[in-house]
């Protein structure tokens, strides 16, 4: 219970770990769109190579990347199968009633799967190499211009960081309540499904009540410590933009004309 890891951050000292969260966020956000520029073997090749380079630079073990991919793997496989069998172009390899397997279809399926894979790997790399609180800080900083449009950027970021801070607390609490209810005869892990779902109720109700109590206490404590929103606030956490951050963005920007030139 004492080793709760929030998000999927893997501590490390790689160049990606040391980058400014803002540059990583911008790069990933841009890449999600840039991936759509690729439409032939060469352009996809460029993107795949870049992704591999990023994986190597992150020095994160492949196991962790696979873990990030696992939930989406099924979606990728289904996409591949659907695209492979329902696209009709190029030479037919196999034709039976509704099913047509063509070379063009296979290529299309491969491209779309690679596109999905690249997007998921890129975002996974971001969360693997950046702590949630750094991502929050980065987002707050990047979204600052939206304050003029009355979007509550600061409040949103504070909400995120408080949520992150309270996840372990609430998990500990859940465990405590579970033990207390088990002692009173509630069974959480056996019995038919309907019964197990019903058993969640005596867990959720006390948890919610206590969460509200905590929220009230916290609000009071924050006010006592002089919190009044974004007015006249300074920050302890600093974001440092370095040369490598500029370089990363440069690579991303250069990638656009390169892909436009190479695409078919």
């Amino acid at each position, binding site marked *: 219970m*004492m080793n*709760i890891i929030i998000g999927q951050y893997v501590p490390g000292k790689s160049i990606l770990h040391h980058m400014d969260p803002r540059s990583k966020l911008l790069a990933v956000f841009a890449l999600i769109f840039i991936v759509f520029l690729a439409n032939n073997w060469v352009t996809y090749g460029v993107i795949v190579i870049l992704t591999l380079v990023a994986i190597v630079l992150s020095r994160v073990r492949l196991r962790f990347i696979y873990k990030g991919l696992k939930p989406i793997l099924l979606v990728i496989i289904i996409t591949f199968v659907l695209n492979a069998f329902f696209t009709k172009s190029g030479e037919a390899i196999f034709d039976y009633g509704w099913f047509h397997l063509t070379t063009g279809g296979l290529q299309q399926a491969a491209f779309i799967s690679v596109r999905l894979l690249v997007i998921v790997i890129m975002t996974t790399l971001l969360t693997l190499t950046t702590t949630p*609180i750094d991502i929050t800080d980065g987002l707050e900083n990047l979204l600052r211009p939206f304050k003029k449009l009355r979007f509550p950027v600061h409040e949103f970021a504070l909400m995120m*960081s*408080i949520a*992150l*801070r309270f996840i*372990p*607390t609430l998990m*500990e609490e859940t465990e405590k309540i579970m033990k207390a209810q088990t002692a009173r005869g509630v069974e959480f892990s056996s019995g038919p499904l309907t019964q197990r779902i019903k058993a969640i109720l005596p867990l959720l109700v006390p948890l919610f009540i206590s969460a509200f*109590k*905590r929220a009230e*206490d*916290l609000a*009071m*404590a*924050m*006010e*006592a*410590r*002089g*919190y*009044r929103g974004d007015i*006249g*606030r*300074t*920050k*302890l*956490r*600093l974001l440092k933009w370095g040369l490598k951050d500029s370089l990363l963005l440069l690579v991303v920007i250069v990638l656009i004309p390169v892909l436009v030139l190479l695409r078919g």
Partner: protein
Amino acid sequence: MNETMIDIESLCFKYRNEDPDWILDHISLHVEAGEWLAITGHNGSGKSTLAKCLNGLLVPEQGSVKVKGFFTSDEDSLWEIRRSVGMVFQNPDNQFVGTTVRDDVAFGMENHGVPREEMVQRLSESLELVGMSEFQGQEPHRLSGGQKQRVAIAGIVALRPSIIILDEATSMLDPRGKSDVLKVMHELNKTRGITVISITHDLEEASSADRMIVMDEGRIVREGTPIDIFKEPEGLVEMGLDLPFTVKLRQLLIEENGLNLSEKAFTEKELVDELWKLQLNI
């Protein structure tokens, strides 16, 4: 004559208008700079409500609360009041805002717009003061209750306050955490001259105060030094307060054994000394 820190004039308060009785009923109280004041009373006696009136979390319905010359009802001075009156609450978890010790200590300073270089300096200084320097990067769920309360104190000390209110701040701690927190507070009270107001139902804790008030049903019923109050323990038990062990022992020794103990024997040491002397006299 010391400087007056807090000046309360017949303060009345209730949470809802339709409530028949005041939660705080015409309370008048002066707190002087540098003193340690204990406010005791059973649950629902109004002591926590009184604490929240002292830094403007609650505003009086009638009467006034003046902190260092500012009225808490004046919204413009509210932030200055909250800077100079720090408050440590009961539940260590529910007042920890930051994701790490550093962030939490900085929270108050961020709110008050302390420039970053100074923030970093005050941060290490105040963590040092409460003995939590080595835990800078720790997350709250890896700290004990006492450690969290000391972090909360560090966050307050960093704001350079004049008064720190402990609102039942030790009631959820184990004996070790409790004594650590109280030790830090006594240190701050002595070396920095910070006024301490400790709200507690633990008379043991209250007995180390300079002055003590006992509250019941929203009124101040007793006021004086702990010795004055423990000299006549009658009524305290009826108010739902548990007397310190040494006070009970002294009383029993006098009543049951007919020992002739002086009016000073209230702490363990005093009592032991007194008993030794009795033995010598025989």
